[in-house]
């Protein structure tokens, strides 16, 4: 009996060892933490690269706990790309212990002046930088440079893809600007559950107000809710928005509070913040920008 157990143990050990050996095929496996990064990489990568998003759409990266399956995916990767700035709370802890794959932190070259910080806690950084186009360009450039350094054979392809993608982003930015400018100046206030749109507001010229701080981990209390209700009623704001990663309960209670004060505020559809959406017009980075702009314009006009 003991021998059998020993063999079983040895067998499972060898199984583990063979599994952890990388497949030496031609495809380069690139694991990206969120759907947003993975869309960037899809746009600049070569066909030889296989891109895997770790988090599906609609999942909150702040509180996500990696499972055994995620660890397997991470271990099997050749390249891992993540946002940094504490966006992926638990995943970053795992990445710190990883050895082997090339790990790219896209935030490494960000210009510090552009980063939004909490005025009362300068150490806390708003990580939702993809709504700022300069920071996005910096992130994509970082990815391209790192990939080119690791795989010089793809350098030209990556560079030309990146230039094409940048011009696409510029085009979309122009469209977003024109959509936002169609909203009357006094009504450009977006209220959402979670402070993920600060960069978006700064880039395209509207105010953002939320219940919570920059991270979904912080809790809000009764004061935040009543304060928001007073603000909405005071400013006669026509609509409030949900986000695709946060429970709608808080916004429903804000809406009920406004109603009890005699002001009907609409609840708009979910804006995309920490991940792309599932639908046709939401599932790429550029579509996300357009979708958010159109939704905001439609409800605030």
């Amino acid at each position, binding site marked *: 009996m003991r021998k059998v157990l020993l063999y079983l143990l040895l067998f499972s050990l060898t199984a583990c060892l063979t599994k952890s050996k990388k497949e030496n095929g031609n495809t380069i496996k690139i694991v990206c933490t969120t759907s947003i990064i993975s869309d960037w990489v899809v746009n600049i990568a070569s066909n030889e690269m296989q891109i895997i998003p770790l988090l599906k759409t*609609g999942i909150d990266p702040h509180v996500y706990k990696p499972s055994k399956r995620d660890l397997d995916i991470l271990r099997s990767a050749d390249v891992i790309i993540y946002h940094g700035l504490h966006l992926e709370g638990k995943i970053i802890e795992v990445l710190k212990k990883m050895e082997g794959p090339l790990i790219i932190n896209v935030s490494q070259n960000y210009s510090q002046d552009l980063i939004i910080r909490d005025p009362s806690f300068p150490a806390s950084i708003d990580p939702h930088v993809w709504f700022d186009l300069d920071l996005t360009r910096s992130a994509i450039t970082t990815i391209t440079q790192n990939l080119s350094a690791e795989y010089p054979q793809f350098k030209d392809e990556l560079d030309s893809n990146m230039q094409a993608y940048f011009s696409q982003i510029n085009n979309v930015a122009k469209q977003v600007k024109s959509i936002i400018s169609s909203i009357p100046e006094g009504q450009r206030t977006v209220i959402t559950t979670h402070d993920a749109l600060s960069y978006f507001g700064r880039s395209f010229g509207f105010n953002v107000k939320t219940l919570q701080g920059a991270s979904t981990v912080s809790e809000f209390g009764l004061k935040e809710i009543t304060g928001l209700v007073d603000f909405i009623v005071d400013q006669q704001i026509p609509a409030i928005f949900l986000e695709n990663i946060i429970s709608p309960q808080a916004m429903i209670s804000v809406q009920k509070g406004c109603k009890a004060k005699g002001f009907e505020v609409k609840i708009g559809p979910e804006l995309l913040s920490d991940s792309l959406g599932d639908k046709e017009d939401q599932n790429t980075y550029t579509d996300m920008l357009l979708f958010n702009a159109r939704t905001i314009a439609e409800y605030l006009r």
Partner: protein
Amino acid sequence: MDLLLKYITLEDPNVRFVVVAIVLLGAVSGMVGSFNFLRKKTLVGETVAHSMLPGVLIAFLLSGVKSPIIMILGAALSGWMSIWLVDYITQKSKIKGDSALAIVLSSFFGLGIVLLTMIQSRFSGNQSGLDHYIFGNAAAMTPEDSTTFAVVCLVVFVLVMSSYLSIKATIFNSDYAQSIGISRKKIDILISILTILTISVGIKAVGIVMMSALLIIPPTAARFWTDRLVPMLIISGCFGALGGWLGSFISYYETNMPTGPLTIVCVSIIAFVSMMFAPKKGIVYQRWNKLLLRRRINEENLLKAAVQNEVRGKGKLFNRAQINTRQYFEQKLWNRTINRLKNKGFVYKVHTGYTLSMAGRNYGADIDRRHKIWEVYLQRRMQMSVHLVHDEAETMEHFLTPEIEEEILGELGLCSRFNPLLEIHEIIPDPDIA
């Protein structure tokens, strides 16, 4: 101050929603928790609340929508399974009740966390907010929540009223209750229904953790204030409601103060204050009482020793050395005790020593007599050996009341003019006389 006034008048609609709902929830869970607490099954509430997580998540997985009714049903179902499982484990195995509760709690909650992680990583779209079933979001309550809690409150009240006496009998003496034809099983099921009903509607608004706390802490606090069932239910309900009221006030007054956790903090403070300062059962009262008792015993011992000295013909004047031959007093203790006796008028200071006042002599003689009566009683009625009765009597002399004394004398067939001082010499050889 303005804010406090605004809060009390419930002027702001969101304050109204939250306060009404949380006060109702606190009241109903305080009452329901009391039944579990009195049945010595306090942790059942905690186990049931945690065990509801997998039910909620499976309901979501099967239905695919976040409908509150479906999820409450799922919660109730898995809550019921957990109670059944705890009973099954305790009845069919050697595992004790508390271990069974812990096993069921951790396995169900663990399953829930597994399901939650699975849902979060496999399902996209509308899963957001499922984790609120764990920690809740009390600040975001709506009038629907208040209505639900009001209905639950009413249902609980009606169910309790409908079989109040049976519940009472089962809780306090279940064997007696069964002997007069009350089905214990039925009452168990009724209390389980109350528990599950309260928790399953509660967790949607305030989360599992807060529900567990609301079921456990208010009854624990209330128990310090009363020994009777109805006051206990009322006090416990009031504590739960008060905690909710205070918690939401702080959350309304300060920024970034989550309502649910603050409610728990307030309820806990109430429990702590009760534990310390409640009359009769509070720690402060009991400590004080013990101190008074110790002082009284010392005083009585001193007076008794002085009387014994007088009786044995050692004179009316006494000092510490003389008393110490019978009853040892340290210098400090002696000073404190003799000063108290002096202030009470039981002894006088006379140049080199002390002497008993009339009242002091009577008091000391009473104690001495009670000591001897108890010795006689123990020998005659309890057939105790002569050598053992003295130590017993040393304690009992301080606790015998005149009524008990009378009764003992009656039982021994002696009249109250019986003088144990005379009687006792034949029983216990006095060292002085011998």
